[in-house]
């Protein structure tokens, strides 16, 4: 066993992904349940009137500072959380190659987050 060769002692870049994963995990646990409950269940089911999300109201809510925060904690961070778990899930199922899985999963998370932010900027302008 040569645990001490410099190659093997390479620092992992995982802290970055783990940091995002953890932040996303907190958001997923704390903010997402409410978001799903209201946006995807109560309103579509008609329990809360769609008036609450009329076009104008929705616009003013989303394209504002609170909207930006919403995008961050309900879209971007949970996406990185999901990407992390999917990447490790692929490893658990012995699918794909470590490096590629990493690029694809985090790449997607980054890309979709970027799209959401671009959307926000367009709307806010």
């Amino acid at each position, binding site marked *: 066993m040569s645990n001490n060769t410099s190659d093997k002692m390479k620092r992992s870049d995982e802290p970055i992904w783990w940091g995002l994963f953890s932040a996303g*995990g*907190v958001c*997923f*646990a*704390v*903010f*997402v*349940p*409410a*978001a*799903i*409950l*209201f*946006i*995807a*269940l*109560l*309103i*579509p*089911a008609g329990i*809360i*009137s*769609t*008036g*609450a*999300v009329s*076009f104008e*109201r*929705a*616009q003013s*809510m*989303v394209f504002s500072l609170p909207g930006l925060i919403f*995008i961050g904690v*309900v*879209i971007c961070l*949970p*996406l990185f*959380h*999901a990407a992390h*778990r*999917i990447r*490790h*899930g692929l490893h*658990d*199922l*012995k*699918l794909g190659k470590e490096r590629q899985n990493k690029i694809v999963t985090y790449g997607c998370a980054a890309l*979709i987050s970027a*799209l*959401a932010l671009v*959307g*926000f900027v*367009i*709307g806010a302008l």
Partner: protein
Amino acid sequence: MAKPTSYFPELKRDWWLKHSYFKKYMAREATVLPLVFFVACLLAGLYSLLQGMESWQGWLQFMQHPMVIALNALAFIASLFHAWTFFQLFPRVMPLRVAGRTLPPNLMVLGQWLGVVAVMVLATWIFLRGL
């Protein structure tokens, strides 16, 4: 590593089906799949909002589709399940010490659930305000 005479069974892809604990683990990891669906819905909503009134109405209708509601209901359950598992992990990863004593884990779990409730209340206030 393994001597030539030894026998070293390789872990097969379906290892997680062999023990109920691992099935629960996989379920925990899989909570992100419905989450991704919900996030995709939100993204679609964001873009429909950019396209104008009609498109937004279309999105609202899309959200009412039974399949979509069902999947989002699943996402809701998944998010709560995730919260349940995640909150238990937290005190073990970052034990908080107050005055030289570790805070009881149950107290920390409770605190986190209070957070969830607070966000629910906030959301209720936001969505019902002005109605």
